[in-house]
């Protein structure tokens, strides 16, 4: 019993060290510590203390499943799919391949979204909140497999013919038992 408990604790510890910020849901940037509501209801808006520059936070987005899925949602909400489709490219360049015109680092993609690029990529700086730009960058990187695989779903709920051809083989369905 004790041995087992020890093993379990060790496993937990190991898993905790490797970190599960992958599963964190950050609904708000910065975290909702403020009492903005109360202050706002008095109708004079007091700006709070300025928060640290957001660039430092971006690495957290790249491995976070929630950030990637939010990025996926925003990709369609902000009509990125209008030019890039679901990553396959069209009017805009494809995003699923390994070819990066302006670099594949999150910062590069962030800059591309904020500043825009020649030949049609509009600048979204000042239009969408910074944290959403990082979420979009994380999703775009996930399209070409630059984010951890287990933070990304296998498919989405739209038609599949535009999704990346998966190279994985079919797993045999799990064993349901064999004669004892």
């Amino acid at each position, binding site marked *: *019993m004790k*041995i087992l408990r020890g093993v*379990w604790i060790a*496993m*937990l510890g190991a*898993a*905790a060290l490797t970190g*599960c910020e*992958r*599963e*964190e*849901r950050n*609904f708000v940037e910065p975290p909702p510590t403020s009492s903005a509501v109360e202050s706002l209801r008095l109708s004079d808006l007091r700006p709070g203390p300025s928060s640290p520059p957001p660039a430092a936070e971006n690495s957290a987005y790249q491995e976070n*499943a*929630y950030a*990637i*899925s939010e990025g*996926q949602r925003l990709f369609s909400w902000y009509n990125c799919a209008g030019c890039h489709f679901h990553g396959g490219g069209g009017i805009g360049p494809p995003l699923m391949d390994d070819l990066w015109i302006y670099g594949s680092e999150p910062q590069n993609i962030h800059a591309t979204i904020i500043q825009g690029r020649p030949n049609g990529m509009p600048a979204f700086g000042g239009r969408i909140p910074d944290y959403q730009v990082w979420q979009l960058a994380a999703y775009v990187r996930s399209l070409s497999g630059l984010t951890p*695989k*287990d*933070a990304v*779903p*296998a*498919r*989405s*709920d*739209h*038609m*599949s013919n535009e*999704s990346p051809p*998966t190279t*994985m*083989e*079919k*797993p*045999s*369905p*799990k*064993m*349901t*038992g*064999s004669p*004892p």
Partner: protein
Amino acid sequence: MSARQPMDPTNFEPLGHSAERERLEQTWSTPPGIYGWLTTVDHKLIGKRFIVTAFFFFLAGGILAMLMRLQLAQPDNRLLGPDLYNQIFTMHGTTMMFLFAVPIMEAMGVYLVPLMVGTRNIAFPRLNAFSYWIYLFGGLMLYSAFLLNIGPDVGWFSYVPLAGPEYGTGKRADFWAQTITFTEVSALAVAVEIITTVFKQRAVGMSLGRVPLLAWAMVVMSFMIIFAMPGVILASTTLIMDRLVGTHFFNPAEGGDALLWQHLFWFFGHPEVYIIFIPALGMMSSIIATFSRRPVFGHAVMVSALVATGVIGFMLWVHHMFATMVPNAGKMFFTVASMLIALPTALQVYCWIATLWTGRPVFKTPLLFVLAFFFILVLGGLTGLMLASISLDTQVHDTFFVVAHLHYVLIGGAVFPLFGAFYYWFPKITGRLLNETAGRWNFWLFFIGFNLAFFPMHQLGLEGMPRRVYTYPEAMGWGGLNLLATIGAGLIAASVLVFIGNVLWCRRRGALVGNNPWSAGTLEWATTSPPPDYNFHPVPVVAGPEPLWERATGLPVVAGLSDTTREVLVTTLIEAKPDHREELPGPSLWPLISALALAALFVGSIFTPWAVVWGSIPVAAALIGWFWPKKRETEEEVAEEVPP
């Protein structure tokens, strides 16, 4: 019982066989120390372990419930955010259904059934060990995930598309699906063991008509597991495949259908309720018979009612889907079935009342818990009738009315009888009695707390409060009743604490009461309390449904079973005539190794499909190791072999 013992409970302790007893002791004993702990195949040790583990999960689920009640105690509460609340209610449901209710019913079966039918171990004892390990690993996996913030957050029913790849972000839903897989494997294994034990290992003379009602209930439960669990096997497998390898079972854009999930899930999910409820009915019968001092009225009616409940239980699942677009004509069939399933339960209630009426009730704590059933379960069953009506269900479905209903049914129908059963069989397991005063406190706190917690929820549901909300606006006016419910939940928690204290105290210091303190009539009381490793010596022969009541002195017995190998007597299916002897396997590490290998496969397959391919190699190796005979043991056996 204070009055004169109607029979000598030690009549199965014949003197003068001590050498034989010693040999039996040696043959059937579990090796000492940690090695023995890991390798045992004794159904009593595994059953106890199962019960204790399931009870721990009951406590964990209860703590989660308390957190939910605290969050809902007042409107617009910010104690728990939606993210954590969703994980907690999902964990609560998953824990209570898959890690507590089903396993503890099976655990009671694992402990009691072999004793009740008079055999020395359960059929397939190594499979039994394996099913415990796989259950334990599944539970540990789920709670490890929860502590690491990967707790499932899509409800214990995991409706797609919310649980699908697009909206079920991260690995949370996968951990849910794999927990289900672990529990399925465990439950199915136990079901097969119980059926085989009751069908083939009964004491000589225990024809089907003499099988105790609890054993019948366990058989019906096992059959329901066998036919219901495949639904959720398929559901959780297809869900994982949708999430991991991009299949489209539930993607409407590619021909899949979210309703398919609901059909598969509820095809399992409704029988699940009866899987929990039916063993509790068996416990009711055991307790009522003993404390009314007579056999349960209408044995044949009771058995038929159990079987009928089990069969009709498979014809109800669509009543969980009355608010979907299933055609109305189809729904009507399910209305009829959902109403009519009340009939077998009503008949059982009438038979029990007739038993009490014609018997001579003895008011002890087990009977109190059982009597509460007549209020709580009947109320829950009546609200169940309301849910069976399509139109009325569209008003109360997915509201707190259903929360109230299901707790009345599951706590009233299963947890109250279970607590009665704990008080009733505790002396069997430990040889000591639980304290009666603490038992009364336990009971009344539970009864009052329960009704305080759940009765107001009926009204909340009718007043429009939906389920699974992490909070509600103050303007809705639901605050008062919710606060009341939270207070009731606190009383339940206090009651459970009383119970734990009672068990911990009496485990060592409770009154020693001999082998058959309630002078009950069924075979599990025919041996010492606690029973020896080999359960019975000599193995009894029975001549009626309550063998200990029918024969005032020594029952006839069986002779000629080997005392140097783990031999049990196999009897015929209907008449229980002696058929042949079969040797059951002894302690082994292989079940544990196999469970570890399978657990690695299951956990790995949350992250990559390749885990199924590569993981199957150690699983196969472990299973081969398990079945591979040992040379020395085989030679010994061949020496004693009698071919058919």
